[in-house]
Structures are given as structure tokens and as C-alpha cells.
């Protein structure tokens, strides 16, 4: 199969296609929030599978690469709100790592919506549901991720440097004074 | 040489005339050059703010923009406290963000970068250089004059805009008064509102505000109130008679407490005649107290001179007595020594005799 043919195949979204999304959730906040969503019998799309990690600071970028490589269409990383980490500083490190990693993925051509980082506390069941719904919708709109197809060119925002770099990350990843 | 851009304000040639006159007098004496901002306009005061918030920041900004352009490098002095607050508020707004400056530029239709600072006259006179000059120029110390320094509300509030670190108890004017020999009293109403803005609309609430200020000044032993705000001055000076009438009707003692601008008193200390610095045009009689205190000061000086002379005389007396005692002691010691020497010599003689 030639490259062109692959592209054509990718351009056509298969019938009954559902996005596959993997959510890495920290045990103390977001996993608890997801449980709370269950206790409240909230409904959200089944496209997201939650993988429990002890802390968002445990989140290794390799897992994201593995997931995208092996066929996931999107990855969500969730942890406690900055300042609320059960392990004091874990999510501050996660925030920095994920911010840089997200820029790398975007540089490599991945659509920004396919990799998202959100802070959801153990009480924010509603936020968990809304996040899952919006991520599923955004990824659904992008279509299947086929890493062998040619990634369409899109304009990258100018890369800021220094302090400004912190402002460039998505709304949730707002910088705060990191105490560590 | 101290040089500033000068924003006289609307009251400069009307209700605040003595302030203008005395300011000019003092500035000339201590070598502060005040260059009037060409084509300055009304600061807008509270009236503009009620009309539109943009107008309230744009009106002062126009004058400040002219100062930046025509008098580059000079900070702006606004002696009137109301003008100072308007200008300072506008400046703070302009310095807050690029968008704010753009908005102002659009309204005043002129370039404006908010470079010049806005200062009160107190700021200007409280610099080390000015204070040294003032101290050197004082010809007559205003001794025995107990002053309640009244800063008013407009110079210190809002505290973040006015960059005032001691809103309740500022000390610049007190320090200046001390410098010219007057005695500032410690009182509690330095920055209290005098209610000037409400005297027409709600006099029932506003009259007691004036009365309280007089009351506290008198209770803390002040002879007079010294202010730096033309509106406070007008309000206090003009309405003292009215307040007194009401007090007398209620069987209370009337006040006799004149008000002065701090520049007037500095002018007096520099040797000016009261008429020269505008004290003749006050509402409440303001000259008698000054004469009385001048007399008190002279009497005090006389008494001090006598006391000093007496002290010197006593000192000399003591010194003489001490010298006499010392001489006596020395003489006694000498006699004792001689006696001892003789006693030592005698046994030797005896010994020789025995041999």
C-alpha cells in the first residue's frame, strides 16, 4: 500500500468509529473524583479508560508515546490542583514536564487537543464528567490518529521563551510559584 | 537649584490666594523654581468623576502630558490637595497598563507616557536639600506657637495611589514646623475628613465634622491649625464663626483657633510681614495670636537669658569654691608631708646619738 493510499484510507473515518482515549489519573484526587462521579450516577461517554497512578508526578511521558503509538486517539493526564498534591510537590513537577512535553508533541505535529492535562480534585465529579465529555468530543472531531499518515501542516504558535513560556500553556496549566 | 513644573489649580487665585502668595514667597526664598505648566486645565476634581470615569483620568492627564512635553524631566507640583489627588489618580491609572495609556492618548489626542511624577508641596519642602535651606533661612523662630498639623484626607488617601505609608499619622509637616521653631502637638485628626464636600448638601452631618477637628486640636493644646489643603482651609477658616454661633447658642465655649497654611508660617519664620504672605485675608482673625506668641517668645527668651546668667553665675561660684577647697587640701597635705619627713629624721638623729 502506498503512502498516498494510506492517506486516503485515513481521510475516511470508518463507520462506527469511536475514539480511544486513555486517562492517567492520580489516586488521591482525580481517581477519587471519578469514583464520586460514579457514586452520583453521572453519565459520560465510555471512550475513556482510566489508568490509576499514585501521583501525577509519576506520569512518565513515555506512557503517552506508547499509547499514541499503539493506537490511542487521545491522552488525558489528570492530577490534584497545584498546591493540593498529596505528595506536597508532585503535581508541580508534572505541570512543568507535561507543559514541555506537550510542546514537543505539537512540534512533532500532533494536534494539541489529543494530549490534555487537567487538574480535578476529589470533589469535582462534575468537572471530571465535563472534562471527559469535552475531550471525547474534541478527539472525535479530529478523527482517528493514524501515525503512519501524513500529518497535515498547521501553523505553530510562535515559541515564547523565558517567563512567557508559562503563559503559553493551556488554561489549566497556569504557572504558580513552585516551592520546591 | 530645585526646579519643578507647577500646577496651580483653580483655587490658586480665588479661595486659596494666600496659599499661592505664601508658596511663591517661600519658593523664592529657598530657591525652588516653580514653572507653571502652560495652558493647564482644571483637574476635574470630584465633579469629573461623577460625570464619567474616563473624563476623571483624562482631564488631569492632559495637563500632565503638556508638562511631559513642554517641561521634560521636571516633576509636577500640585499644592492643592484636591488637584494632587486627581493628578495622582490619573497618573496611577496611566502607569497601570499600556491599554490605559492608549485610552488616555485617544481621549486627549496627544502623546503621553506618564513620565513626570506628581508631588505635593510638602514632598518638595521635605527633601533634605530643601530642609537644610529652610533651616538656614529662618530669621525668627516661631517659638511658643503650638500648631496642630492638619494634612486633610486628600493627600493621603487612597493610600495605594498616594503612596502614603502612614495614612493615620503623617509627620512631614510636623517636622517642618519643628524646623521653624513651632511646637507641633500630637493630635488624632491629622487626616480626618473635614466634610467640605458635604457642607451644602448635608450640613447636619458635615458641621460636626468641622467641630470635631477644632475640638480635638484644642483638647490637645493647639493654638492654631496648620494645613496644606486650600479646601480644608476654606472650610475650617470660613465656617469657624458659624460653628461658634451655634456653640454659643448651646451654651458652649466658642473656639478661637485660627488656621494657617504651612507656607504662611514658614514665610513668617523667614521674616515676612503677615500681610506679605496673605495672612491678612483670612476669615478668622489670624494676626493677634501671632503677635501674642511673638511676645510670649520674647518673654520666654528673656526669662531664659536670666536663667542662663544665673546658671553661669552659680557655676562660677561653685568653681571658685572648689578651687578654694582644693588649695586648702593641698596645703594640708603639704604640711602633713613635712611633718612626716621631720618625724623620720628625728629617730635617725636619736640612733646616731645612741651609737
Amino acid at each position: 500500500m502506498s503512502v498516498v493510499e494510506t492517506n486516503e484510507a485515513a481521510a475516511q473515518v470508518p463507520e462506527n468509529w469511536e475514539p480511544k482515549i486513555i486517562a492517567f489519573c492520580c489516586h488521591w484526587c482525580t481517581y477519587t473524583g471519578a469514583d464520586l462521579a460514579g457514586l452520583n450516577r453521572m453519565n459520560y461517554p465510555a471512550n475513556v479508560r482510566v489508568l490509576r497512578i499514585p501521583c501525577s508526578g509519576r506520569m512518565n511521558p513515555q506512557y503517552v508515546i506508547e499509547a499514541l503509538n499503539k493506537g490511542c486517539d487521545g491522552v488525558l493526564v489528570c492530577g490534584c490542583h497545584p498546591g493540593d498534591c498529596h505528595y506536597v510537590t508532585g503535581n508541580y513537577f508534572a505541570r512543568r514536564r507535561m507543559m514541555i512535553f506537550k510542546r514537543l508533541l505539537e512540534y512533532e505535529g500532533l494536534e494539541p487537543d489529543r494530549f490534555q492535562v487537567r487538574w480535578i480534585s476529589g470533589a469535582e465529579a462534575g468537572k471530571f464528567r465535563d472534562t471527559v465529555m469535552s475531550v471525547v468530543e474534541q478527539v472525535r472531531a479530529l478523527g482517528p490518529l493514524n501515525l503512519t499518515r501524513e500529518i497535515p501542516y498547521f501553523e505553530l504558535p510562535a515559541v515564547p521563551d523565558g517567563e512567557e513560556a508559562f503563559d503559553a500553556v493551556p488554561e489549566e496549566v497556569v504557572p504558580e510559584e513552585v516551592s520546591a | 537649584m530645585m526646579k519643578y513644573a507647577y500646577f496651580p489649580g483653580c483655587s490658586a487665585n480665588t479661595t486659596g490666594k494666600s496659599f499661592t502668595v505664601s508658596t511663591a514667597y517661600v519658593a523664592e526664598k529657598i530657591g525652588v523654581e516653580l514653572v507653571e505648566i502652560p495652558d493647564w486645565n482644571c483637574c476635574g476634581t470630584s465633579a469629573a468623576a461623577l460625570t464619567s470615569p474616563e473624563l476623571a483620568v483624562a482631564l488631569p492627564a492632559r495637563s500632565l502630558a503638556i508638562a511631559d512635553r513642554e517641561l521634560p524631566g521636571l516633576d509636577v507640583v500640585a499644592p492643592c490637595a484636591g488637584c494632587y489627588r486627581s493628578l495622582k489618580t490619573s497618573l496611577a491609572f496611566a502607569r497601570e497598563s499600556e491599554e490605559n495609556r492608549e485610552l488616555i492618548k485617544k481621549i486627549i489626542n496627544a502623546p503621553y507616557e506618564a513620565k513626570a511624577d506628581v508631588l505635593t508641596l510638602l514632598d518638595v519642602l521635605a527633601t533634605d536639600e530643601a530642609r537644610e535651606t529652610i533651616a538656614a533661612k529662618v530669621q525668627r523662630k516661631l517659638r511658643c506657637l503650638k500648631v496642630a498639623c492638619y494634612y486633610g484626607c486628600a493627600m493621603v488617601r487612597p493610600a495605594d495611589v498616594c503612596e502614603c505609608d502612614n495614612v493615620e499619622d503623617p509627620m512631614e509637616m510636623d517636622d517642618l514646623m519643628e524646623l521653624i521653631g513651632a511646637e507641633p502637638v500630637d493630635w488624632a485628626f491629622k487626616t480626618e475628613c473635614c466634610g467640605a464636600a458635604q457642607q451644602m448638601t448635608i450640613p447636619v452631618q458635615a458641621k460636626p465634622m468641622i467641630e470635631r477637628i477644632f475640638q480635638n486640636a484644642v483638647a490637645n493644646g493647639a493654638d492654631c491649625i496648620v494645613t496644606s489643603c486650600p479646601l480644608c482651609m476654606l472650610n475650617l477658616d470660613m465656617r469657624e464663626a458659624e460653628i461658634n454661633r451655634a456653640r454659643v447658642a448651646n451654651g458652649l465655649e466658642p473656639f478661637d483657633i485660627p488656621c494657617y497654611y504651612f507656607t504662611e508660617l514658614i514665610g513668617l519664620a523667614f521674616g515676612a510681614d503677615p500681610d506679605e504672605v496673605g495672612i491678612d485675608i483670612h476669615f478668622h482673625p489670624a494676626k493677634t495670636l501671632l503677635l501674642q506668641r511673638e511676645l510670649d517668645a520674647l518673654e520666654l527668651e528673656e526669662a531664659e537669658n536670666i536663667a542662663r546668667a544665673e546658671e553661669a553665675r552659680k557655676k562660677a561660684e561653685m568653681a571658685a569654691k572648689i578651687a578654694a577647697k582644693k588649695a586648702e587640701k593641698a596645703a594640708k597635705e603639704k604640711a602633713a608631708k613635712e611633718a612626716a619627713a621631720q618625724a623620720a629624721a628625728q629617730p635617725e638623729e636619736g640612733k646616731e646619738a645612741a651609737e
Partner: protein
Amino acid sequence: MSRIGVFLCYCGSNIAGTVDVEAVAEMARSLPEVVYVETNKYTCSDPGQEGVKNAIIEKGIDRVVVGACSPRMHEPTWRKLLADTPVNPYMLEVANLREQCSWVHKDREVATAKAIDLVKMAVAKVARLQPLHSIEIPVHKKALVIGGGIAGMQTALDIADAGFQVTIVERETSLGGKMVMLDKTFPTMDCSACICTPKMSEVGNHPNITVKSYSEVENVSGYIGNFEVTIREKAKFIDYNLCTGCGACETKCPAKVTNAFEQGMSQRTAIYKMFPQAVPAKPVIDAEHCLKLTTGKCGVCSKVCPTGAINYEDEDKLTTETYGAVVFATGYKLIDWKPLYPEYGGGKYEDVITGLQFERLVNASGPTEGHVLRPSDRTEPKSVVIIKCVGSRDPNKGKAYCSRACCMYSAKHAHQYLDKVPDGKCYVFYMDVRTPGKGYDEFYMNTLHDGAQYIRGRVSKIYKEGDKLICKGEDTLTSSQVTVSADMVVLETAMVPADGIDELAAKFTVGRDADSWLVEAHAKLRPVETNTAGIYLAGTCQGPKDIPDSVCQAGAAASKVIGLLNKDALQSNPQISRVNETLCQGDGACVNICPYGAISIVEKQFRENSRKVVRPVAQVNPGLCQGCGACTVTCRAGAMDLLGYTNESIMREVDALCQW
């Protein structure tokens, strides 16, 4: 080849209502390495658990997957169950089929498909897990209590009565804290000294309690069961073995110093006891003010001392000991209101005093011997204004929180004043009156009957006219301005944490909130523990409290400590970081990232290419590591891994998921 057992739960109809559990079981049977699959109506019930146990033994299972409710619910139950079987308790993975599947999806087909994926993930992960074993951490049966106020003393007594050794470190020269400064205590009005000083001597004489007065914590290392604490005992210049506490030195000392215990309202000597009933009942020399120590001239105290106990060459002493548990009872101080409230004179008026100063004024052993006399001219004030919430509930100037005890002690102050000055007038400016507590509201009502005038509003300015203090304020109930002429004003100021709490808490890695109060592990369920295991909180170091609450919390902290010290050893959490020393470069990136200080770099000897080499490698302290895994990601060499959540097991989970 591992032998995995999968146990799926119906949870009545909770899971089975939406998920076709039998279909999930059918799929699970086809997974590699799965040797046994069982479904059960209620796996967590006793018969259900029994079934799991039997299956493990019969089928020779060595790893277990449970597909049931959230692991946050029953993971400990399964671990406990496995501890009774040959399977290691950490060879377990729980698939969350209820909270994150059946309860949040309605479509049976979709939910079943997701359940299948979740079980696949769990099987993939469990196949890569390794058995983990807790290690035993020995517990030093000795407790350290920091602070000798009422909370610290109560904690120490409770622990000591249970038979354990306790050391109290007190910064001041005597036990007693703030309580011993108070005159009477609400709502029963028993004399504070009468109930506090017996406790002090009980602590001082207890065979299990060591009191280290005039001492501070210098350094800390270690972890739960094994805190190695260095204590600095400041130079007292007096040999306590010789001193009899006769007090001759105090009567002769010529230096005069402002008395902090009397809130600056009297003077003490440079050689001093904080107050007559101090424990230890022996003086110290205040090196800052002693004439002998500052100028070299004087030495009167050493001449009058009958036992020769004075030693001007004394120096600070450092001692290091190991403690199993630490209790913070560092207490509070009153906020420095002077810079915050210039409108109240900012300290200019001598007769504007704080509540603690008032306590000393009405105290029979205070500077006025219990007569209410105002500080400026020592006359009896005929009208007193009490202002509540000075610094509390005032986010613009002071603190946003309520200091909790002020409503009651201001009522007490009003009552005491009216009691001592029957013809006096007392006005209380308040925002709210909050008197929840046994006998509290009755007490407040009595104060109202005593004649205290409560005015709802704040005071905007206090100024002086003649010898009167004029308080200008607002009465919000009548919407009018009020002016009260007072002889004395009492400010009931906010409680704030004691000085130096930030540095001390940082030494123990105890969390603080924005106002520097120490943070409990859980606001409701773990109120006396901290997030650092083995460190507990008692009294006002955790937040403003009155005496009954402080004593309650002290008892609670003591019971936690006793529970801990009763154990000979602790089981550590084995899900912690592990270093692959072959890969480790010893660059210490992990050391910097660890919030618990659990990682250190040590020199170790290895055999490489049949030669002995010594190189630095990271070492994880299993007592300190909490298992967050931050170090695993930061390691450039990939030498760090988190047991229980290894890189490999997570990667297999991801892989299993991607097959859906």
C-alpha cells in the same frame, strides 16, 4: 508462567445490571496466563471471600485480579484476604467495574466492552507485578513534645501515665504557656493558676517526663519511630544541680528589664524566674541584659548566692536523642496589632491594651495586684470599651479567620471588669457573638445581665481628648454613628501562630496553611495527625482554640502517640521507589525532587569488569519514602522505579488497553 485468578463481582445488580459479567468472565478465560475465572454475587461478603481463598489454594493461583468496586473501597480488604493465603498481598490488581463503569454508563453493550478492557488491563498489569514485603521499622518508645503550654503538658502527662518516656522542650524558662498568664477561665471562672500550676508541678515531678526548659529544637532527621532530634539548651548561667531556687539573687540584681510575662506592664531583673510558681522553680540569667555578661562589671548574684550556683561561663548545650513520635504543641501568640491599626493609635496610647494585658491587670499576682488600674496613670477606669475581632475576620488588615476564643473571653473581661468596678460602664463592640460550647451562651447572657452594653459594629477610630479615649464607631443595628468616651480600651486581638513556627515546621516537613497554622492530615477524620507519619498536633498550633478544645486535642494526640509507641515495630508500605544500582549514575536529580528527603547519595563498592570500583549511587530510605514516584520520572538513566507501579506494569496496561 504465572497463574492468574480472576474474580468478578455482580455486586447484586450494581454491576450486573449494566455489565454482562458472564461475558466478561468468558473473555477473561481466553486471556493468557489466566487459569481460573469465577463470578460471584457479592465477592466482598464472607462466603465470597471464603470462595476466593479456596480457589486460590485449589487452583494454585499466584496472582489475583478482582473485578468489583473501586480499589479505593476494598483494596485493603483484598490485601488482607491475600495475607491469609500463599499469594503475596501485592500480587493484586482491582478492576473498577462499578464506580467507573456500570454506574456511569447506561448502554449494556458499551459498558460490557469497557469492563472487558478494564479486566484486560488488570490482567496485563498483575502479570508483571512482583511480590513485595513490608519491612519492620523499630519504634523508639519515647515521645518528644514541643511546647510546654497546657496542650503540651496534657499530652506529656497522658503519654507518661501510659508508661512511656516523654521529653518536653519549652522555649521559655518555665512551663505554663499562655494559660498561666490568664486570670480566670470561662465559663466556670475558676482561677487559671489554680488549675494550671498543679499540672505544671505534676509534669515537673513525673518520673517519666524530662522537662527541657529554655530549649529549642535545633535539628531533626529520621522518620516515624526514629526521629533523631538535636535540642539546644540555651545557657542559663546557673547550675540547676546546686540552685535551690531561694530567690536571693533576684532581689539583689540591679538590672531592670521590661517584663514580657506581665505584657510589658512591669519590670523584672536580669536574673529572673518568669513568675513565682515557675517550673522549673529556678532562675536563669538573661544574657542580653545582665550587667556582668554585657559590661563585665557587677557579679552581685554570684556574691549573694549561698550555694555558688552561678556560672558566668555557661554555654549552650546540644543534645541528640531518638524519639518514636513527635507532638507539636507550639501554641499561639497575639497578632501585633500596632502596625495594622494606626487608627487605634498604633500603640501611641498606653491605655489601649490587649486582652492578655487585661488578664494581667485583673490577676491578683499581676502588676496591679488584681486592681483594675489603667497603665498610664494607675487610676481606676470608670468606662471601658472592649473591641472584638481586632485582626480577626478582617482580611484587609489582619486575618480572615475567626479566632474562636475571643467572644467568650471578651464576655469574661466585661464580667470581670463590672465585678471589680461596680460603678463602671463597659461597652463591647462586636461583629457577631459566637458562643457555641457547654455553658458558653449562658455565660454571655449573664454578662449582659451584669450590665455590659453590647454594640454591634466596629470601631473606626480611637483618639485622645484630654485623658479620655474617644472611640468612634458604628451601631449597625440602629444604623447610626456612636462615639463612646472611655478611660481604657481593650482590644481582643487575633491569635496567630507562635514565632518561628515556619522554620520549625520546615525542619519536620510539617505542612502549614496560608496563615502558618500547622495542617492536619484530614480536617475531619485525622485532625491530630500530620501528613508526616509520626508527627501529631495538639492545641493552638493547628488553629485558634480555647482551653477545653486544646486539652481535648492534647488527649487525642497523646492516644495516637500511645498507640504508636505500644508497637515494637511498624510495617512499612512496600510500594516505594527502588534504585537499580547498575543503572544509577549518582547524579542526585532524585535527591532534589523528593519532597520527603527520602533519597540520599551514598558511596558504594561494586564489581565491574572484574574490578572493584567505588561510585556514588542513590539510596532510598524505606521509612521516609511515601511512594509518589516523582523520582522515577526525573531519573535520566531510568534507574528509579516505583514498586507496585513499575514502568513495565504501566506500559503493559497501556498496551492491553490499546488492543480494544
